[in-house]
């Protein structure tokens, strides 16, 4: 377990910023309960500072996880956000899409968000921006990128894709074997 290098931090922050924009400042700058980013094996964890300190007493091969896992670095050095980051992303999300009850299950099975399933969405979503998907009861379901801007998506067919799914909470079941180790 170690802190991120300058370069790694840049990659991670760039990725996160596409979903939460400038709100990323809240992640780094939390006076009451300072949080830190930690790299263990190839995974990045976002964790309270005091917990990170406790975790130093666990040997590297034995430490499996701490705090919240944000995602992992791929072999090519890119950063991939995991669904486990959803509590943080949903808290500071910039662009949101709410989907109706009838769209929940299709989304959780790994499908993209269709126009017909949309309950409401933020007004100012541009094209290809990171969005967070919520159920109508405000429970975060996953995240993705918008296929069209809000304005454009108003005149789409009901079957047209409004947002591409990147990750959804259905992965807790579907990807259990690969997601956590």
């Amino acid at each position, binding site marked *: 377990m170690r802190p991120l290098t300058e370069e790694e931090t840049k990659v991670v922050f760039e990725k996160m910023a596409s979903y939460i924009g400038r709100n990323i400042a809240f992640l780094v700058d939390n006076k009451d309960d300072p949080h830190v980013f930690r790299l263990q094996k190839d995974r990045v964890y976002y964790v309270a500072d005091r917990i990170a300190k406790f975790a130093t007493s*666990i040997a590297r091969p034995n430490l*499996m996880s701490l705090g919240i896992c944000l995602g992992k670095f791929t072999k090519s050095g890119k950063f991939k956000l995991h669904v486990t980051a959803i509590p943080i992303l949903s808290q500071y999300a910039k662009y949101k899409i709410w989907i109706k009850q009838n769209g929940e299950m299709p989304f959780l099975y790994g499908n993209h968000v269709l126009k017909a399933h949309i309950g409401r969405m933020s007004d100012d979503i541009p094209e290809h921006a990171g969005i967070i998907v919520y159920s109508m009861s405000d429970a975060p379901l996953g995240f993705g990128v918008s296929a069209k801007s809000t304005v454009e998506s108003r005149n789409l067919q009901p079957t047209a894709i409004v947002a591409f799914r990147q990750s959804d909470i259905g992965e*807790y079941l579907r990807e259990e074997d690969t997601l956590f180790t």
Partner: protein
Amino acid sequence: MGNRRHKNKQGAPPTYEEFSQKKLKRDQKRKRSDSVSESKPPKNLKKDIVEKPKLSKKTKKVDENDEKEIIKRQREEEKLLPEVDFEELASAKKSLFDDDDGEEEELNDEFDIENGEGEEGEGEDDEEFYDSEEDARERPMFSDDEDEDLDDLNAANMEALSAKLDEEAALEAEEAEEELIQSKTIQPRAKVLPTEEELALENQSGAKDLTVLRTRMIEIVKVLEDFKRLAEVGTSRAEHTDRLLQDICDYFGYSRFLAEKLFNLFSPSEAMEFFEANEIARPITIRTNTLKTKRRDLAQTLVNRGVNLQPIGPWTKVGLQIFDSQVPIGATPEYLAGHYILQAASSFLPCMALAPEENERVLDMASAPGGKTTYLSALMKNTGCIFANDANKARTKSLIANIHRLGCTNTIVCHYDAREFPKVIGGFDRVLLDAPCSGTGVIAKDESVKTSRTEKDFIQIPHLQKQLLLSAIDSVDANSPTGGYIVYSTCSVMVEENEAVVDYALRKRPNVKLVETGLEIGKDGFTSFRGKTFNPKLSLTKRYYPHTYNVDGFYVAKLKKIAPSPHDVSKAGAKEKESLARAEEEEEGIIHDDFANFDDEKDDELIEKSKVRHLKRKGINPNNK
């Protein structure tokens, strides 16, 4: 007042003697009360003289203490009553009537009331007479009238009424007992054990007839319950038990070894209940994740999805029991969003016993798949720090999944052999040890236990458990201001894995003591078992059986560490690290004390020589100074 259930039960009808006597008395009274309506209460009856001032006094100043005392006294007297024959009672009443003693008088007043409906009416009449309510006097008595008795309850008649109800209950119980005894005595001493030939025939026919086995088991259990009375002459208890065990093995499919072990834990009838409960699956239960939602909201959403559910019981505020569901309960959007987790009701118990407080540091030594860890985290409201350990790396996967799904941010997941623990990091406020066990409490879940467990398991597993418990104790900070607790739990019902392990730890670590688990349900742990005597404090631990609470078989013990011990060394502390480094240095240093001393004279000579040589080489004559 007494149990209202009895109020609608009609008492036993009076005997003919009593009845006729009553009639006589009633006539008397009628005459008497007629005279009362005109003038003062009649003085001709001794009873009235004694009783009246007493009652009126009571109505005037309702001294509660007094009453309580009297009621208590009455109860004591009543305790003796069930021994007394009904007839005797009646005669005693008659004789008591002539007694002057105030208390006795009261007692006999009770008898008046209790000895049957008719008399009850009379008793009532008496009282109403004293209260000078004349209108009700002539009213015929019905069993339903008792309702009114309760309604117009007042200080004067309260104790009498309560006494009456108690009395009735006692009588009923007595009758039931009598009936039971009769039915028992009527039963012939049935021959329940099969003969050699019958057995041979049974074995020959291949598949055994289960109904025959079942009836035989029930019969043998009945005989064992009351061996003296019911056993066939010339048979021993051992023979019966032996046959019963063999039948249990055949019927339920246990290995003989395990069946015997489990059978020894209970009385024969309770053992049968236990074995039968193991054939039925426990209800599916879920735990609300209080970090994300409330139980009421969750229940509402699930009901809307077509799930039939209900709270588990009054002892937990987060559990829900699922009866049936139209959707897979482990794949609803709420499940994926982490609003609940599928968790057996029994595994709530150790977490509730541990009761972690906010901002504490807690260790869960064997945590996969994370039901208990996430519950602890929810109890601590995501503050403090939880170390979730599991020895099996593959199982940490589900642990991490559950931790993330339920949004527990205060956890550190590691995989160590938990026995290493005080060395990895110690000084925890609380430690939860849900030890790996033989699983004899969850046979309903895992049938393979029935046959796979051997004697070796019951030596190896407790051995591991003992080591783990000692590690758990050593990992706790005795001086923690809020905690210092260890909870030990297993999903086994065996004494070897439960009481014996805790008893061992108490002997090995005198710096811990057993404390109350704080759990509302559960049976007390054994303090002795088959010749072994344990620490008497072991009664503070709790046992759970599938047939009593409809949870898995379970055991929970809570310990408090009261003092530090030399076993608490941790490799992680700064002090320990320093002393470790010093020790290493000492070990690795090349020069030890036994190395040769310096000889200064010889050294000087050598130094001189080398100087001379040095000068010569430079071409300087050393003697040329």
